[in-house]
């Protein structure tokens, strides 16, 4: 038992810290960009348009699957502006059309029609569309000017003015319950055509008058082979509908005519055509894709009945049309050499062909390397322009399967690459960088103590010599670089030069994205050092990243394991890799034939210093990885002390298990929360790498209130199934994960989620929506053992007879929040802050002091002594507390905190749509000199004092001498 007096010392120190640094957390203006960076992403591109309004325009417009409409600088790949709509189906962008300066968008499955001013990035107008699911939209031109836009819904077609979005007319479509209307087309005449299909029966074509929406013509064409207009038909030439029949592999033009072409088996042929201007009919040339890398350029002859093949492209990955002025060109992307499969990097070539003749244009070949590891090229966006000598130049944007965008300029220069997969980071870890050779040498010196005195001295000297050498080399480098012009000096970070810095502030960020692409990012500069694309990852996969071995075990390389689980089947696979280089490890992961329910990382280490990962399958059998003999033996020895829990949120079941010696399991407890009343929303334990420095808190009367530090405590959050505002509630259960004992239960009536919560040390902070007062509220639960510890040496869940004292307080928070996390430092001495992600994109650093259930309503001497802030119902949000100032992180999804080598410093990465990395100092930088430390002042004062003493000494001497003479 530790005496309380001893205890109080660090805690009182703590109090001093608190009192000194309450209001301190803020960014200074000169720190902008010093150790923080932000990268903005938009997501997977759905629609891309180059600004063709003016020849020299640099703008590129993208609409993405993250419901974002963005404008890029096509020369640099940087964002001009970006509009983030609501996530989910209500904000999905159905179509993006560009006309002049206006970008037209149908949003939310035909909910809204928006027109943007692409120049300013503001909205021109927004119009609410009638209900009905969106099918198609196109511009409608009248006498060569585009004035309207037609929107086709499932059962209606409407025409809107481009200037203000007002509806000109809306017409119901005939027989909309049987006919599937799928396409709308206007060729510049006074008519709007709507194409519908009754699958495998006939095709319906209706022509509407532009003026008043009257049906001018209605025609039905027998087409028993046609199932969908959308996927197999395009309009070519002067109003000729070209359809491809997937069953008989024939090409139909209407009026029907067929042409035999060979299609690779199992491939659905695709037609590609182009309508350069909505006021004119599409060009009569079109592409037919016959296989994954086989395209044919075809031409519809002027008579409208015959088709002539112009050119056969094989192999050809992608084709695209582009128009500039009066010229239309076709861009074709082909692999440069035949050995596609063998090499990792493949050179690709893009050539331009004249669309009307199929002839290759001279000097238009662009060759660029394509990393096939990043997936196949997916789409090609070509921006053609006329050069001064009237020849066609072009730039091209290549989208690959991993959502990456590459912008290429003639002659084969990759201008920029955007890794848009990073818009959807699922999970991440920060891994320490390896030591350099010198550092390792120095570290090694302290390892062995068996040597005698003399060798130790020698070793010390030799390492000092090494340090001196390194320093001299550094000086020489500085001198050498100083002579160079400033712009040329580049400190490029490469994998080879990576090494840990003095305070371990620079780390490797391993990020896992939803698309299955892994990234290794340098936390200091934000540059991507490695990337690895896992190709066969299902879109609904769940990921868990585990660091099995850190960099501390040289010469064993660090090792990370990614558990990829299919959400529907539960089947999982492991990807083992080196987090510093991104290379796949040669260690073979175990085969996992059964669905995985739970994974746990044990502190047990095998002979190669890798922590053991246990995977529990649906039969409650356990698989260990690595599963060497050594590991299995260790597991057997401690099987009886390994516990884990499982959650079945669909059954409202929370159960605890214990491992048996034969790696099977036994259930030891079960908590059932009836699903008719409430459902389990989230379960959270504490972070395993968290340290708590002080065991208690010193109160005003100098007694100690000991914290209840149960490492096995789980916070279970439930929400009521009844959504009625009067009866809804949010429940928080604190359950001991070993014994299943419910330590505390708090129910917040008239509240609903989404609940965000943090569980750390001896407290749980959660946030919910108060349905009665319509506001967000923070509640804090703090657990204390009381003024005496039951067993101060070790905590045991099985031997704690007394329930902890629970204190709770609730506060109003004047904003909704999107995510929450607590800061984490090396030793846990620094005070804690909560990092709260707000919908505005700001990340608020809220001192935990404000969330202290012991905040008094009436200030007393004791509370003042303890530095408790008097209770105030409303929590302040101060913009000075935003750690990311104006660098907002859109749609913050997670905040990752990691300790650094400095106790005062916590590394923070906020990810969502954007990635923001920074450092926070919750108690200011008490262990290093601050940025603004005034070296000049301190040295000048020192010198001044020194000289003053010298002079006064001299004067005193003179005076003494004079007196002696007197």
């Amino acid at each position, binding site marked *: 038992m530790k005496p309380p007096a001893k205890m109080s010392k660090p805690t009182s120190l703590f109090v001093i810290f608190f009192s000194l640094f309450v209001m301190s957390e803020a*960014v*200074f203006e000169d720190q902008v960009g010093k150790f923080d960076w932000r990268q903005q992403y938009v997501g997977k591109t759905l629609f891309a348009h180059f600004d063709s309004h003016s020849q020299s325009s640099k703008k590129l417009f993208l609409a993405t699957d993250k419901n974002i409409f963005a404008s890029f600088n096509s020369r640099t790949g940087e964002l001009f502006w970006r*509009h*983030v709509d*609501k996530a989910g189906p209500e*904000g999905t962008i159905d179509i993006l059309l560009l006309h002049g300066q206006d970008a037209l968008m149908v949003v939310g499955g035909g*909910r809204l029609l928006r027109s943007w*001013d692409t120049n*300013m*990035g*503001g*909205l*021109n107008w*927004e119009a*609410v569309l009638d209900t009905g699911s969106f099918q198609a939209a196109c511009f409608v031109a009248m006498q060569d000017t585009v004035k309207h836009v037609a929107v086709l819904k499932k059962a209606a077609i409407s025409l809107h003015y481009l200037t203000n979005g007002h509806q000109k007319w809306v017409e119901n479509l005939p027989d909309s319950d049987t006919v599937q209307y799928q396409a709308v087309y206007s060729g510049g005449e006074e008519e709007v055509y709507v194409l519908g299909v009754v699958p495998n029966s006939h095709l319906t074509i209706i022509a509407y008058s532009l003026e008043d929406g009257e049906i001018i013509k209605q025609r039905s064409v027998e087409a028993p082979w046609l199932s969908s207009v959308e996927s197999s038909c395009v309009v070519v030439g002067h109003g000729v509908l070209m359809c491809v029949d997937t069953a008989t592999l024939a090409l139909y033009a209407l009026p029907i005519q067929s042409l035999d072409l060979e299609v690779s088996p199992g491939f659905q042929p695709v037609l590609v055509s182009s309508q350069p201007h909505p006021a004119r009919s599409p060009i009569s040339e079109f592409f037919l894709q016959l296989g994954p890398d086989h395209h044919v350029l075809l031409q519809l002859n002027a008579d409208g009945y015959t088709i002539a093949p112009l050119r056969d492209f094989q192999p050809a990955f992608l084709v695209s049309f582009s128009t500039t002025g009066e010229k239309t060109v076709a861009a074709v992307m082909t692999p440069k050499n035949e050995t596609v499969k063998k090499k990792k990097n493949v050179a690709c070539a893009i050539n331009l062909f004249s669309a009307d003749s199929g002839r290759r244009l001279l000097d238009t070949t662009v060759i660029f390397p394509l990393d096939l590891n990043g997936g196949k090229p997916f789409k090609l966006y070509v921006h053609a322009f006329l050069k001064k000598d009237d020849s066609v130049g072009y730039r091209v944007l290549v989208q690959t399967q991993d959502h990456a965008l590459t912008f290429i300029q003639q002659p084969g220069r990759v201008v920029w690459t955007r890794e848009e997969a990073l818009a959807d980071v699922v999970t991440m870890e920060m891994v320490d960088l390896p030591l350099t050779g010198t550092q390792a040498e120095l570290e090694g010196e302290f390892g062995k103590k068996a040597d005698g005195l003399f060798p130790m001295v020698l070793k010390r000297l030799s390492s000092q010599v090494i340090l001196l050498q390194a320093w001299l080399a550094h000086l020489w480098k500085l001198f050498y670089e100083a002579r160079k012009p400033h712009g040329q000096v580049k400190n490029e970070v490469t994998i080879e030069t990576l090494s840990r810095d003095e305070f371990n502030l620079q780390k490797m960020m391993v990020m896992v994205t939803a698309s299955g692409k892994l990234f290794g990012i340098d936390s200091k500069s934000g540059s991507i050092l490695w990337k690895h694309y896992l190709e066969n990852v299902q879109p609904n996969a*769940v990921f*868990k990243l585990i660091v099995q071995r850190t960099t501390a075990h040289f010469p064993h390389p660090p090792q990370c394991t990614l558990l990829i689980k299919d*959400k529907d089947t*539960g089947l999982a696979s492991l990807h083992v890799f080196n987090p510093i280089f991104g290379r796949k490890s040669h260690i073979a992961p175990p085969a996992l034939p059964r669905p995985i*329910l*739970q*994974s*746990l990382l044990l*502190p047990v280490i095998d002979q190669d210093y890798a922590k053991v990962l246990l995977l529990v399958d649906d039969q409650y059998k356990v698989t260990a990885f690595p599963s060497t003999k050594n590991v299995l033996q260790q597991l057997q020895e*401690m099987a*009886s*002390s390994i*516990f*884990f829990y499982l959650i*079945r*949120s669909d059954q409202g079941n929370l159960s605890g298990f214990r491992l048996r010696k034969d790696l099977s399991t036994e259930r030891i407890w079960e908590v059932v929360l009836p699903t008719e009343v409430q459902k*389990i929303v*989230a*379960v959270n*334990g*504490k972070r*395993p790498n968290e340290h708590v420095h002080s065991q208690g808190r010193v109160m005003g009367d100098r007694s100690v209130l000991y914290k209840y530090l149960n*490492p*096995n405590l789980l916070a279970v959050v439930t*929400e009521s199934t009844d*959504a009625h*505002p009067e009866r809804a509630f949010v429940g928080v259960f604190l359950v001991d994960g*070993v014994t299943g004992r419910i330590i505390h239960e708090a129910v917040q009536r008239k509240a609903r*989620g*989404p609940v965000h919560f943090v569980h750390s040390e001896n407290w749980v902070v959660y946030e919910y929506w108060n*349905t009665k007062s*319509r*506001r967000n509220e923070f509640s804090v639960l703090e657990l204390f053992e009381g003024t005496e510890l039951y067993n101060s040496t*070790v*905590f*045991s*869940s099985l031997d704690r007879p007394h329930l902890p004292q629970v204190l709770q307080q609730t506060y*109003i928070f*004047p*904003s*909704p929040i999107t995510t929450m996390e607590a800061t984490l430092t090396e030793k846990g001495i620094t005070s804690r802050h909560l990092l709260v992600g707000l919908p505005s*994109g700001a990340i608020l650093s809220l001192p935990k002091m404000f969330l202290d259930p012991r905040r008094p309503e009436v200030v007393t001497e004791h509370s003042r002594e303890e530095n408790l802030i008097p209770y105030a119902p*409303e929590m302040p949000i101060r*913009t000075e507390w935003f750690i990311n100032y*104006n660098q907002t992180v859109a749609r913050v999804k997670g905040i990752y905190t990691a300790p650094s080598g400095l106790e005062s410093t916590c590394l923070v990465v906020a990810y969502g749509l954007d990635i923001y990395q920074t450092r926070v100092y919750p108690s200011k930088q008490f262990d290093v000199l601050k940025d603004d430390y005034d070296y000049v002042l301190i040295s000048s004062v020192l010198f001044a004092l020194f000289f003053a003493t010298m002079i006064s000494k001299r004067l005193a001497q003179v005076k003494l001498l004079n007196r002696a003479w007197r």
Partner: protein
Amino acid sequence: MWLHVRLSEVCLFLQAMFILACCFSDMESGPIATSGSVQPNGDRFKIEGRAIVPGVKTQDWISSARVTVEGEEYIGFLRTDGSFVVNDVPSGSYVVEVISPGYKFEAVRVDITSKGKMRARLVNFIKTSEVIRQPYPLQLRSSGPHTYFMKRETWGWTDFLMNPMVMMMVLPLLIIVLLPKVVNTNDPEMRKEMEQSMNMLNPNPELPDVSEFMTKLFSGSKSSSSKAIGGSKCQNITCTSGLRNYCNWSCHGNYNAIFKKSFFIRLYNCFLSRVFFPLSNNPRVCTTLVLCQF
């Protein structure tokens, strides 16, 4: 005993191990926020308004701004003239906010009745039913750019010199050094003049000075820290620990007569005792301040 040891051993392991058993089972990542009583087919309304940043062109800020209703429940974008419409909002009470990384706007609560009547009022999270009406359609005026940064504490010579402590140290020093030079003490006319002026202020010169009296009292009875400083003219500078803020010293010689009566000196002493000494609890401070009686 053995059991106990075993148990604690086990628990050590538990401590370390259990916590790592993080959940990886099928959990919905939080429910989709369903606003309780809203029917999907209920009437939908629109919230209209206009946002203004005084002195800033709209094109400079609208591309990064947006309008959020109740967090991100409904989102609207700003038109090129700063006006906005949030469409498709069911009846209810919402906090409407214009979010811009550059400029701050006050949030407004908008109530929509089931018939579509709109009302805007100030947001008050504590008294939620309090109504302070705001104009509708909303008129949101920015109160300026956000203050994200703290001011660095810079160090300059002026800061140092203007520091009240330093001022208090320097000013007396100046007076002490300069005053004897300004006032020619050896001039008998001058001496006379000053004596006269002092006499006018002191109606009864025969009455002993209070401070003098006190000094005598305390120096006699209590242990006092007294110290004589160099030179033959001034002796017996007394600091009284009982009278915390007051110092006395009696001086002899030529200076005494003048300074005792000097109006300036009195003023100065007054200043010292009022301003300077209350700051320091240590009565010895006064020993460093030379000269004269209070």
